[in-house]
């Protein structure tokens, strides 16, 4: 049976001819439409597996057309094509469900790589489209009915089946790797490998070999061929944690890998094509890393297609109690204890604690309680020493004197750090000590505010 044709929707005739030549030479059947109306008609009539769509069409916005096509048949993979200078449009398209994007001018390797990746992912996607969506992940970090976590669950479900690169940000302990795993498990690649690599934990001189592999004898100590994480993740997902820790030279190679879908192990003479979805994460502000020059801007835009920000535990309302109760039950079973729940004092303390280590810290506290006590209600006395210091201290520092009624004149001549503290203190007072509300008012993240307050407490 002849495979369904590719559908190319491109209005410039010479480009139609070039794309058609390349696709035909590679053995693909292609149907060409010169505008959105003809493209939509062909889409309905031919049921193509993959659509190559120019985003700038004479009769309709390409993004709008893509959304109509995906509403009709969500399992189809749409590769959008746009000119250099319209990258924002491509990013928008990826967020709206495009499978991949190509930036003009034409690059034959990248063009065919994107088409082949889309075609190879087609059948599982069709099966997944018929199957009901899997439930959201239930790891500890994902327990909780807060609005912020509901948004995370929805985003994971919507992006999982796309090939779009996902960039996860969030403080340490918020569950970034679990989020990456959830994206993999909800994707059409769930049967493939999930390979996680912590770019910050591997010495930079070994990182290239860890990511791209090496051949025997390529350097001292290379006693056998090693495939590398990118090749090991072929058909699945490669999770690059602490991506901002990657050395500039390796960033260049990662960018090339993203552009060509090929890996060249250290010492190898030929590149090898792989089909990998990239999910990456950092606990830094990636844009700040770009501004500092520590992270390539072009790589940032390649990776930062679908951002997911994992909220800190202190911003997740009652999730802290739900996670604590679930962990208490689980650890009690594991350790043979008989805990019945949290006392009201502990619940109040948990709600007001800043949890700088987030879910990981909460789980450590619960494990500590379960291991060192027999059971019953968890009381403040059972909590570890490290929490005792904060039991009676609200998450605010001692206010500086004379903060009421600060006028501009009184600030002139004072150090900037002192002025900043005065403004933060006054805003905290305005919001009755609420760090989240103060952070919102000052356009800061609560974690930044907590850090500053902690810094003032330090001797």
């Amino acid at each position, binding site marked *: 049976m002849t495979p369904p044709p590719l559908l190319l929707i491109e209005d*410039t*005739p*010479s*480009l139609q*001819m*070039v794309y058609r*030549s*390349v696709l035909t*030479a590679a053995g693909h059947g292609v149907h060409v439409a010169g505008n959105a109306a003809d493209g939509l008609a062909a889409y309905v009539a031919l049921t193509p597996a993959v659509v190559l769509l120019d985003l*700038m069409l004479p009769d309709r916005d390409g993004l709008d057309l893509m959304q109509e096509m995906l509403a009709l048949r969500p399992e189809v993979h749409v590769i959008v094509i746009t*000119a*250099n*200078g*319209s990258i924002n449009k491509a990013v928008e398209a990826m967020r709206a469900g495009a499978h991949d994007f190509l930036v*003009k*001018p*034409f690059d*034959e390797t990248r063009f065919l790589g994107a088409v082949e990746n889309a075609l190879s992912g087609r059948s599982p996607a069709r099966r997944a489209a018929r199957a009901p969506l899997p439930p959201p992940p239930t790891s500890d970090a994902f327990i909780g009915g807060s609005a912020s976590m509901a948004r995370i669950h929805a985003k994971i479900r919507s992006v999982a089946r796309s090939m779009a690169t996902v960039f996860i940000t969030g403080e340490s302990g918020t569950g970034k790797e679990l989020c990456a795993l959830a994206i993999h498990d909800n994707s059409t690649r769930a049967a493939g490998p999930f390979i996680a690599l912590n770019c910050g934990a591997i010495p930079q001189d070994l990182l290239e070999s860890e990511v791209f592999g090496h051949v025997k004898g390529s350097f001292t100590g290379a006693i056998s061929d090693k495939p590398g994480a990118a090749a090991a993740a072929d058909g699945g997902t490669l999770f690059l944690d602490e991506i901002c820790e990657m050395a500039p030279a390796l960033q260049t190679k990662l960018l090339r890998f993203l552009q060509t879908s090929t890996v060249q192990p250290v010492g190898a003479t030929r590149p090898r094509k792989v089909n990998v979805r990239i999910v990456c994460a950092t606990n830094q502000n990636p844009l700040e890393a770009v501004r500092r020059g520590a992270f390539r801007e072009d790589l940032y835009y390649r990776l930062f297609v679908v951002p997911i920000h994992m909220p800190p535990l202190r911003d997740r309302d009652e999730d802290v109690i739900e996670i604590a109760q679930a962990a208490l039950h689980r650890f009690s079973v594991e350790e043979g204890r008989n805990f019945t729940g949290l006392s009201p004092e502990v619940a109040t303390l948990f709600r007001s604690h800043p949890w700088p280590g987030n879910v990981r810290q909460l789980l450590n506290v619960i494990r500590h309680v379960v291991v060192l006590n027999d059971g019953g209600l968890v009381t403040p006395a059972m909590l570890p020493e490290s929490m005792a210091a904060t039991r009676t201290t609200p998450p605010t520092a001692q206010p500086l004197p004379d903060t009421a009624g600060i006028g501009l004149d009184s600030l002139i001549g004072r150090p900037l750090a002192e002025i900043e503290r005065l403004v933060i203190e006054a805003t905290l007072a305005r919001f009755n000590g609420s760090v989240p509300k103060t952070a919102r008012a000052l356009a800061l993240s609560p974690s930044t505010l907590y850090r500053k307050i902690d810094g003032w407490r330090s001797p």
Partner: protein
Amino acid sequence: MRSPPQSLPDGDPATALLGDGATLRDILALAGPAIAPRLLAQIVTDLTTTADHLRPALANRDWPGIRAQSHVLISVAGTIGAMGLHGAACHLNAAAHDRDEAQVARIAPLLTADLARLIALVAAQGDAP
């Protein structure tokens, strides 16, 4: 953002406009001997149409028109390896998005002159035996 080119490359027209010509040769080779002459003719037609639409759009500061035509030029010039013109078209497109009168005034004369030269150059390749 990079600053726009003060002038497009000078010297031998072929070198300046199409680099070493390898990109265009590769595309024509991919198309095969039966299609290549038609492809060359179509490139000339597309570039000529772009030039015809771009001229009045520039004269009237028709920003959507400039954006649309520079977009086509980015694609076609880049695809055939005319990277100088491709870069100039990128700058023109960005200037049109920003409605930056001064930038457009600076880029347009060079770009239109080079576009005309490129059309002649590609057309001459089609006429070559």
